[in-house]
C-alpha cells in the first residue's frame, strides 16, 4: 500500500523561478490497484511520480510505501520497493551494456552487489525465458548492445527489467509517449499482461485520456499541484473521453474565473 499525506514539493524555493509543483496531495493506493494519472503540462504528474521514486525533494508531507516512511530516502535506498519505467527509452537502460548485462543489473535491484559474476548461467536462463514471452525474438540477442534495439523493444525490455524482482509499486512515467502508435499499443498491451500476471500495484502517468480510460482501475486528474478529480469503480467504468474533457474544461474555467477576479 502507498500512502501520501499532505505532500508539498517546491522547486527553486526563494528564487524568482520558484515553482510550487505539488500543493498538498493526499493519496492512498491499495495493493494491486492500477492508477492512471492525467493532467495538463505542469499539473504535477511527473513530480508526484518522482516523489514516489525518491527523485523529487519533499518539502513537507510524508510518503509511505508498504508501511515504511520513505519520505527522506533517496531513490537508490528505496529501489527494493520501487521499480520504474522512464518515458525516454534511453533513460531506463544502458545502451553501451548488453541486453544481458542490463537485465543482470535489474535482477539485483535494491540488493547488495558483490564480487560474484554478474551474468550467471541460471540468470541467463531466467532472462531468456522472460524475453521469449515478449515474442520479439530478443531471447536470441542477449549478447547484443542495448543501443541496437528500437525504442519499442527497449521499453519492452525495460518492463521486463522492472518486474524481475518483487516490488511494492511500479511507476510508469509516460512510458509509451516516445513511441509510434502501433508500438505504443504493443507496449501497453504488454504492460497489462505483466501487471495482471504478477498482480502489481501501478501508478501510470499518461498524456492520453484514452489510455487513462482503457487501462487501470482508477483515474487521478491533477491540476496545479492538487488532485482535481479522483474516480474509480463503476463511476469510472461509465466515463468517456468527453466527460474527462469536460472535467478539464471545468478546471480551466475556474482558473479563468480566478484570473477575472484578480483583473476585475
Amino acid at each position, binding site marked *: 500500500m502507498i500512502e501520501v499525506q499532505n505532500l508539498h514539493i517546491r522547486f527553486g524555493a526563494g528564487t524568482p523561478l520558484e515553482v510550487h509543483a505539488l500543493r498538498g496531495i493526499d493519496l492512498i493506493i491499495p495493493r494491486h490497484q492500477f492508477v492512471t494519472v492525467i493532467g495538463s503540462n505542469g499539473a504535477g504528474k511527473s513530480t508526484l511520480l518522482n516523489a514516489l*521514486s525518491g*527523485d523529487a525533494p519533499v518539502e513537507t508531507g510524508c510518503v509511505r510505501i508498504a508501511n515504511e516512511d520513505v519520505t527522506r530516502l*533517496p*531513490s*537508490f*535506498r528505496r*529501489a*527494493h520497493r*520501487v*521499480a*520504474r519505467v*522512464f518515458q525516454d527509452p534511453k*533513460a*531506463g*537502460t*544502458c*545502451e*553501451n*551494456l548488453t541486453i544481458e*548485462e542490463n537485465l*543482470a*543489473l*535489474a535482477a*539485483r*535491484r*535494491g*540488493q547488495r*552487489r*558483490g*564480487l*560474484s*559474476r*554478474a*551474468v550467471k548461467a541460471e540468470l541467463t536462463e531466467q532472462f531468456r525465458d522472460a524475453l521469449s514471452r515478449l515474442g520479439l525474438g530478443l531471447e536470441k540477442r542477449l549478447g547484443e548492445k542495448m543501443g541496437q534495439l528500437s525504442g519499442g523493444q527497449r521499453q519492452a525490455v525495460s518492463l521486463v527489467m522492472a518486474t524481475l524482482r518483487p516490488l511494492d509499486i511500479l511507476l510508469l512515467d509516460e512510458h509509451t509517449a516516445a513511441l509510434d502508435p502501433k508500438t505504443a499499443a504493443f507496449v501497453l498491451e504488454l504492460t497489462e499482461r505483466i501487471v495482471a500476471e504478477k498482480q502489481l500495484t501501478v501508478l501510470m502517468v499518461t498524456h492520453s485520456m484514452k489510455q487513462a480510460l482503457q487501462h487501470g482501475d482508477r483515474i487521478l486528474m491533477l491540476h496545479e499541484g492538487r488532485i482535481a478529480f479522483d474516480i474509480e469503480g463503476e463511476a469510472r467504468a461509465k466515463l468517456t473521453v468527453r466527460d474527462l474533457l469536460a472535467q478539464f474544461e471545468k478546471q480551466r474555467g475556474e482558473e479563468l474565473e480566478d484570473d477575472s477576479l484578480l483583473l476585475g
Partner: protein
Amino acid sequence: MLSSIAFWGAVETGLLFALVALGVYISFRILDFPDLTVDGSFPLGAAVAATLIVGGWNPWLATLMAMFAGAAAGMLTAWMNVRLNILHLLASILTMIALYSINLRIMGRPNVALLTETTVLTPFQDMLDAYYLVPVVFFSLVVLIAAGLLHAFLSSEAGLAMRATGANATMARAQGIHTGRMVLMGVALSNALVALAGALFAQSQGAADVTMGVGVIVVGLASVIGGEAILGTRTLLISLIACIAGSILYRLAIAFALNADFIGLKAQDLNLITAILVAVAIVLPGVRRNMKSVGVRSA
C-alpha cells in the same frame, strides 16, 4: 632504426604506462569522470615507494603502500566532487596541485635516488642474459595480472554497477545503486593503478622525481584513445587490451619519431606531439562520420 635496447626500453615504458591507461580507462570511460589527479598520483606512487624503500621497507610492501596512497588521492578528488559538488575536472586539478606539495613533503627533497637500493626487480636482475628484457617480462606479468583482475571485477555485480553509474546514473540509482559510492571506489581504483605505475617506474628508472607526473594524463588518454581507434571497443576485454596495446604502440611511435633524424624532432617536442595526437584522435571519428553523411547526401 631503433637499437634493440631502445626498442625494448620503449616497450618497457609502454607496459608501465599501460597501467596508467587502465586507470584512465576507469575514470574517463567507465565512470565518465575526467580525472587529472593522475598527474599527481603517478609521482605520489613513486615518492611513497622510493621513500619507503630508502627507509628500509620491503619493496613489495612499499609498492603496496604507494597504491594505497594513490587510492586515497583519488578518493579525495571523488569526495570533493560527490560530497562538495565541485566540478569533477576542477576537483581533480585541486588534488593534483595539492599533491605537488605533498610529494615534496613525502620525499623531503625534489628527488630520491634508488640506484643502489633493492627494488621489486632486483631478485630477477640476473635471470636473463639480455638484462634489458628482465623489466619487460616482469612488467608484462604485472600488466596481465592487473588487466585480468580488472576484467574480473568489471564483470562482477559490483563492477557492473560501476559501469552503469558512468553510463546512466539515473538508471543506476533507480536500480538501487549508490552512485556516489561507486564514483569514490572507481576513482580510487583508477588512481591506485596509476600510483602502482609510478612506483614501478621509479624502481625501474632508479629514481623518483617530483616533476615526473607532468603530462601523464595526456599520455594515458593518448593510449586509451589510440588503442580504441585501432582495436575498437566491441567488448570489455577488447577495450582493456586496447588500452595496453595503445600504450605500447604510443611509446614505440614516439621512439621511432625521435629516432628518425630526418623529421627533426627532439625529445622536448614530446608533449606537443602528444597533445596534437590526442586532439586528432578525438576529432577524427567525428570528421569521418561527417564525411560519410556528406557522401550519402550527395549520392
